[in-house]
């Protein structure tokens, strides 16, 4: 129950507060907007005459206030003063409000009190008047009785005794009269006769009045006889209570005389002023009626009435007892003090009942007029409360409640505003700090970039010197030292490169190239990079690229390679056994057929070691959940290719607690990791950024002691789709001259493990060799012997199969050699350190199979096959040699224009290009270059110095491009340009900037002015190749 009460109270209080709030808002808005119109707050508090309109106005004001708030909040100072003003207004307003409430409520209470008093007073007055009227009527009835039975009958039938009895018995009819008496009119001439008749003399009354006697001493016989008068009004009949007045002359009493005279003149009941009654000596009034001898008309004149007067009947009213009797009948008589006054004489009111002394000094008094039927006399009833008005507890409580609530609200408001101000300050402070931190971060990045750059230069010197040192005559220890120093130096350089990358990424300066590249070649490269390490560890390394992945992609091969290298580097670091498996699919492929290579039963992996569920690594990718391209920015690609690349290993995995921070820069799984495995922990972070730049996502799944799989997606442009020459990537790969000789051959692959077989087949197929897969040697033998239609050129056996049963292997070799033309036998082995390697090293020894060392890559397989099958052996040279040779092949016969104002530079550049077989023409100014480079071009490329007097490289390039553009549009419009038409629709001469300082900004500028790239000025073969290959390779499209 109490809970319910509490709830109810709470609701009431809430409602009250709500009401006050609304009301206050309206008041505030009134104060706030002077032009807001005048509104009676009282009316609005009580609901008003037009509540809907009022609410609308209030809401309008509130919205205005909000508007103003939002305007003001902008500046702190303004809002500060604003809310301070509002707070003071609120406090003042609430104080005024509570005071007003107090006065309003107390006035209400006073009014109510007054009303109550008035109604009580009126009620008493009315009752008194009614009772009096009843008594008066009866007194009048007695007068009629007298006139009928005393004067109407002769002799009279009423004597004193009869009258007394009658009056006594009808006394209940006149509750207010203490007694009635009848006086007869006696003229002086009739006095003696009258006195004789009654046996007493007419006595005068005024003497008694003058010296009032005690009740007990009252003795009618002692009264003086009345002096001679014109007429007399002696009492002849009287009720027993007033029998002492018999024989008294009413006309001799001052009050009575007046009364009698007025009564007979007016014919109505007439009252005396209150006076002390005879004998009882109590305050009373006497009501007098005249009794006439005959019936008079209503409009009779006073004289006629006087003449017709026979006698007078009088009733005595004891006002005091009368009023008390009356008040006793009313319950709440003790609450008020009643005073009855005769106010006939305004200046000297005569108190008839009660006294003003014992009333409270409360000024509250109510006056009711009393009408006792005598127009001459005026009576008033004054009522007062006995007690003072009670303390206005309710009002005080309400108003103080309002003020408390208002102040509390003010306090809350104040606290809120303070808090807001504080939060604002904090926010400002934080944003300032944030800016500082960002600036510091930028500075840090710049510092890193600068420092890294600066370190790289001397490091190159150190490494170069070490290289030279290696070539000198050193003993073994010295060589070891140098090698160590070199390795450390290389590690340092790569670390610096990584830091530089990170800094570039952080400062947002890293931009991706968009050049055509061969994904498969890149992966082969990366694979060969790690092959040494993997063979050392005995870890199987494999790459599989889906057939649907286009052969040529456009993107940034360097960065892609960096990602792969990072991931594989990590994998190889943490993998001691099992395998590392890189797969590349199209996203659509994986999404559409969810079972592509994803069902990883423990036996169905590359090395047979269990791997974590690969699909989990991309489960969070956005690109999979939604249809269509995963990123809206893809529209920049004409033929986007979404690749999904997974690097799966069977290493020690990543501890669960390290999962969340795996992509955070400079964070490694544990502090011991860097000691055990080295590295900075920056690789994955860079990879993540790079993947992000490629519009892809990166994710991973890892189970400790099982392995990890990192998967990322990347978006490239399809490099093949622009021309129809490239269809099936399978055919395309055959264009590689080194693999042409294998085209059309058939190989038999013996491998019981489907995943591995798939990888091997993929690599062998890249050489154009048709591959059949059989699970074991017996099958293979049967297919060799049975299948005569297709000649099997080679049998490639997985080492595992070969080693499983050496007996059957030997048998197999023997059986194989029984065949007429025995297919060549190869063994795919994982590590060169295998004990059998020695006696298998050459496949030329009949019966002893050749060994192909994993990791498989097409060039490696090709080399092995060539060696074993006696094809001419191509020397596989060092990397630099390759690029140098490739450069030569690219540049041979090309006509190249070199523009430089510096003769020495010109000579050197020309010399370098000539060395690679290019046909070089040199000019030493931009203007000459322009004159030579007018479309249709006779040159294949142009190397342009940037800083030249008169016309710099940018300007020259701009003009060349302009000329090309106008020529192109001309040739497009005019259809008949003959020879030029067929050759190229769009002239675009590759222009490469030559610059000494390779700052990033310069690169951007180069591109902006229509240059295709830049080479740093002392030519480096590697860089030159990279740049030149970009457009010469794409040019082959139409050269071929």
């Amino acid at each position, binding site marked *: 129950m109490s809970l319910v009460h509490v709830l109810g109270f709470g609701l009431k209080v809430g409602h009250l507060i709500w009401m006050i709030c609304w009301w206050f808002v309206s008041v505030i808005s009134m104060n706030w907007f002077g032009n807001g119109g005048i509104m009676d707050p009282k009316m609005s508090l009580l609901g008003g005459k037009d509540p809907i309109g009022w609410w609308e106005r209030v809401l309008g004001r509130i919205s205005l206030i909000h508007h103003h708030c939002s305007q003001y909040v902008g500046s702190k100072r303004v809002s500060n003063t604003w809310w301070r003003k509002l707070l003071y207004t609120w406090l003042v307003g609430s104080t005024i409000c509570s005071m007003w409430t107090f006065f309003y409520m107390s006035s209400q209470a006073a009014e109510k009190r007054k009303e109550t008093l008035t109604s009580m007073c009126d009620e008493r007055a009315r009752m008194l008047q009614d009772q009096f009227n009843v008594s008066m009527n009866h007194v009048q009835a007695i007068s009629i009785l007298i006139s009928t039975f005393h004067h109407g009958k002769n002799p009279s039938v009423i004597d004193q005794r009869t009258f007394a009895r009658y009056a006594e018995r009808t006394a209940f009819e006149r509750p207010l009269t203490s007694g009635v008496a009848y006086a007869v009119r006696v003229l002086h001439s009739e006095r003696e006769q009258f006195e004789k008749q009654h046996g007493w003399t007419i006595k005068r009354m005024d003497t008694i009045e003058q010296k009032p006697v005690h009740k007990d001493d009252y003795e009618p016989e002692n009264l003086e006889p009345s002096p001679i008068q014109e007429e007399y009004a002696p009492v002849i009949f009287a009720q027993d209570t007033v029998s002492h007045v018999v024989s008294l002359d009413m006309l001799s009493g001052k009050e009575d005389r007046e009364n009698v005279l007025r009564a007979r003149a007016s014919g109505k009941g007439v009252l005396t002023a209150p006076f002390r009654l005879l004998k009882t000596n109590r305050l009373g009034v006497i009501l007098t009626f005249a009794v006439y001898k005959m019936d008079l008309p209503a409009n009779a004149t006073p004289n006629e009435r006087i003449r017709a007067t026979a006698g007078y009947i009088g009733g005595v009213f004891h006002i005091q007892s009368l009023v008390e009797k009356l008040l006793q009948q009313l319950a709440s008589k003790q609450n008020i003090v009643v005073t009855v006054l005769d106010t006939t004489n305004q200046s000297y009111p005569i108190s008839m009942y009660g006294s003003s002394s014992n009333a409270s000094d409360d000024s509250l008094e109510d006056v009711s007029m009393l009408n006792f039927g005598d127009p001459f006399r005026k009576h008033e009833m004054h009522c007062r409360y006995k007690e003072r008005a009670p303390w206005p507890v309710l009002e005080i409580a309400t108003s103080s409640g309002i003020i408390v609530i208002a102040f509390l609200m003010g306090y809350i408001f104040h606290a809120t505003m303070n808090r807001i101000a504080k939060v604002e300050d904090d926010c400002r402070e934080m944003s300032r700090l944030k800016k500082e931190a960002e600036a510091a971060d930028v500075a840090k990045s710049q510092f890193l970039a600068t420092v890294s750059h600066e370190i790289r230069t001397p490091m190159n010197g150190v490494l170069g010197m070490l290289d030279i040192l290696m070539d000198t005559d050193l003993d073994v220890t010295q060589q070891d030292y140098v090698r160590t120093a070199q390795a450390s130096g290389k590690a340092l350089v790569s670390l610096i490169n990584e830091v530089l990358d990170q800094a570039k990424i952080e400062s947002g300066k890293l931009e991706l190239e968009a050049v055509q590249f061969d994904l498969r070649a890149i992966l082969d490269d990366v694979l060969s990079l790690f092959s040494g390490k993997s063979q050392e560890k005995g870890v199987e390394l494999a790459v599989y690229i889906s057939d649907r992945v286009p052969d040529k992609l456009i993107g940034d091969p360097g960065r892609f390679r960096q990602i792969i290298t990072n991931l594989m580097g990590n994998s190889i670091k943490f993998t001691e056994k099992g395998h590392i498996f890189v797969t590349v699919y199209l996203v659509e492929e994986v999404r559409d057929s969810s079972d592509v290579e994803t069902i990883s039963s423990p036996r169905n992996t590359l090395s047979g070691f269990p791997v974590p569920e690969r699909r989990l690594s991309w489960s969070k990718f956005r690109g999979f959940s939604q249809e269509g391209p995963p990123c809206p920015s893809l529209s920049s690609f004409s033929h986007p290719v979404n690749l999904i690349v997974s690097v799966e290993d069977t290493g020690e995995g990543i501890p669960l607690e390290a999962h969340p921070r795996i992509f955070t820069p400079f964070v490694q799984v544990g502090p011991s990791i860097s000691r055990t495995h080295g590295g900075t922990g920056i690789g994955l972070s860079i990879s993540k950024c790079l993947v992000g730049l490629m519009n892809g996502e990166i994710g991973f799944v890892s189970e400790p002691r099982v392995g990890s799989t990192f998967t990322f997606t990347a978006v490239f442009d399809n490099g093949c789709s622009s021309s129809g020459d490239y269809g099936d990537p399978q055919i395309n790969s055959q264009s590689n001259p080194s693999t042409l000789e294998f085209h059309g051959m058939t190989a038999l692959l013996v491998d019981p493990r489907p995943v591995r077989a798939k990888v091997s087949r993929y690599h062998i197929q890249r050489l154009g060799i048709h591959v059949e897969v059989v699970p074991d040697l017996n099958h293979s033998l049967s297919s060799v012997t049975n299948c005569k239609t297709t000649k099997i050129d080679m049998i490639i056996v997985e080492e595992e199969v070969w080693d499983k049963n050496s007996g059957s292997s030997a048998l197999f070799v023997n059986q194989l050699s029984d065949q007429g033309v025995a297919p060549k036998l190869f063994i795919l082995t994982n590590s060169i350190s295998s004990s059998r390697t020695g006696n298998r090293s050459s496949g030329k020894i009949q019966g002893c199979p050749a060994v192909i060392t994993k990791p498989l890559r097409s060039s490696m397989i090709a080399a092995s096959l060539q060696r074993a099958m006696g094809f001419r052996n191509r020397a596989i040279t060092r990397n630099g040699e390759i690029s140098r040779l490739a450069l030569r092949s690219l540049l041979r016969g090309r006509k190249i224009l070199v523009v430089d104002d510096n003769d020495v530079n010109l000579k*050197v550049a020309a010399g370098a290009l*000539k060395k690679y077989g290019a046909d070089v023409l040199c000019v030493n100014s931009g203007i000459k270059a322009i004159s030579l480079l007018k479309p249709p071009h006779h040159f294949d490329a142009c190397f342009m110095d940037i800083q030249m007097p008169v016309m710099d490289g940018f300007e020259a390039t701009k003009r060349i491009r302009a000329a090309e553009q106008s020529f192109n549009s001309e040739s497009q419009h005019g259809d008949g340009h003959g020879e030029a038409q067929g050759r190229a629709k769009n002239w675009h001469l590759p222009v490469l900037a030559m610059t000494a300082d390779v700052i990033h900004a310069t690169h951007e500028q180069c591109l902006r002015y229509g240059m295709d790239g830049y080479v740093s*000025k002392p030519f480096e073969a590697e860089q030159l190749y990279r740049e030149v290959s970009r457009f010469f390779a794409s040019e082959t499209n139409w050269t071929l």
Partner: protein
Amino acid sequence: MDVGQMQKRLLDYMNSLLKEGILDSQFAQLQQLQDESNPDFVAEVVNLFFTDSENLINDLSNALGQQNVDFKKVDSCVHQLKGSSASIGAQRLKNTCISFRKFCDEQNLQACLMCLQEMQQEYLLLRSKLDVLLQVEKQIVAAGGSIPIMEF
């Protein structure tokens, strides 16, 4: 002196030049560019460089000797010299050019003059060293040997 000895001497000499910072790897690259089809390439380039540089240095001393020094012109000259010295791998000369350009930017005539002096010294040093080098190379070629190439 037989060819082998001469080759060894040349290598040592070149290494010493490298060590002193007079030349850098670019010179080796230059040497690599020389082959049968272009047997005098290095000598040609170096001689071209000499004439070019002498002209430039003359221009520079003229320009700096004038009342109102045209720093723009000075700067372009130094830039030229810097480019060519970078091309043949004359590292110290190149570095001098770099600092020269810095002072040129600041329009510090005094420092520029100092730089010019230094540059002249560097140039003369380089010239003498390269002359010796070319001479030895010529001897080797005359003796029928091939010019050893520094490895970097």
